[in-house]
């Protein structure tokens, strides 16, 4: 392994990933990525009055993926569904201090978020 240095935020989210798990009952699920390619992310949204009331994630991937999915699920809660495009992967890369070659995993996280949001808007 060449480099196992992770930012404090990535370490913290990897150790104690907030908003991990699945929501039961009436939820929409967005997903992106392939396990065979090393990254798979899923988000569950429970909706109320056009907003994301609760959000949970599941992730198969590197520590950056887990940290990013956890952060996004947390940030998604309470947001209006019409507020699309709120996630800027480059800004999140800065927050997580992601190495440039890992930007691809954030795009998978973003795709899963888009998938969940678009499904929610179709309800």
């Amino acid at each position, binding site marked *: 392994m060449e480099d*196992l240095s*992770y930012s404090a935020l990535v370490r913290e989210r990897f150790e104690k990933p907030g908003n991990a798990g699945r929501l039961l009952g009436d939820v929409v699920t967005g997903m992106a990525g392939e396990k065979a390619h090393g990254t*798979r992310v899923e988000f569950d949204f429970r909706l109320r009055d056009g907003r994301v009331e609760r959000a949970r994630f*599941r992730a198969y991937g*590197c520590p950056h993926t887990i940290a990013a999915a956890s952060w996004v699920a947390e940030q998604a809660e309470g947001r209006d569904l019409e507020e699309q495009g709120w996630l800027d992967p480059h800004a999140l890369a800065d927050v997580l201090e992601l190495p440039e070659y890992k930007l691809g995993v954030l795009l998978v996280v973003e795709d899963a978020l888009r998938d969940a949001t678009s499904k929610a808007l179709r309800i």
Partner: protein
Amino acid sequence: MSTKNPIYMDYAATTPVDDRVARVMCECMTREGVFANPASSSHQPGRDARGRVETARRQVAELLNASPTEIVWTSGATESDNLALKGAAHRHSARGRHIVTSRTEHKAVLDTCKQLEQEGFEVTYLVPGSDGVITAELVAEAIRDDTLLVSIMHVNNEIGVTADIEDIGRLCRERHVLFHVDAAQSAGKLPLDVDAMCVDLMSVSAHKIYGPKGVGALYVRGQVGNRLEPLIHGGGHEWGMRSGTLATHQVVGMGEAFAIAQQEMDTESRRLTGLRHRLWDGIRGLGGVWLNGCPERRAAGLLNVSFEGVEGESLLFALRELAVSSGSACTSASREASYVLRALGRDDQLAQSSIRFSLGRYSTEADVDQCVEIVTREVNRLRGLAPEATADAARDWAV
């Protein structure tokens, strides 16, 4: 989680220098010790140093059942592999320009073969079965009339599986093909006998068996001079095979390490086999785990395991209370999985989520038990986060 003192389980990568080895090395460095140039035969200090070097050469030779005059000091197994392959190819190219090796060799052999290919040599890369074993049958199918050299490692450094060295050696002898064995992972751990194995060239290293880094040796059958084309010129040391002032303290350390390993091999091998079984019995309880390589034919202390449902980089980071290595260069942009495990037919996910546990002289039952506890906890945690987590695994997270 404290990672200040992770449990060391990476003995196949390197080992600490044994205290007994360090003591004899220290005797060869300072003004009061045997510091002189072993090539300085004109004075007593030089002759004393030469005496220590030759004692070490005998100690290394004894472990291989070789003659001391067949041992050439090098900087390590990588240089030994280079000297063996390039030296034989360049010196004996009139015999033929075809080389046989395997896809699961160490990069020191593979990259040297790539270099020789650029020089016009042809190389056949054998692919083992799913058990990882390179058999004499595989080699027999690849040998041609113009085959010059066969190079096969004794113990694979990633999965710990042993090749059919004796049978391959006999085959090479019958077919008049030179036979090189990379024994970096087996010297001092498994019995070696260059005569019984029909080996012509054998690479060994000190730092894999509690000797210092930066020193190794190449066994060259018969009279060393003229057998190989040297890589390094200048001074004619080591029968002209490897010029340069010998690092007496390194060489003496290697000799002592080999002597200790020979004395303790039987008991240590039994102890490590017991610890390895204890480790595997503990880990396999997780379910969804795969032992990589043949379960029977393996070095005592090495276990390579793939874990279903966990990603390699996360697994390695989650296991940072352990000093283990991954079978994957998974932090690189390419996320390239282990070429050895891919050669065995493992899919990308399993190849990428493999961990090599290698036990050694200072490993204890308590280390193994703690390792099992950590692996069980972390693999279950990561599986619980994954999309296909079962309801049970995800129950702590469900809302």
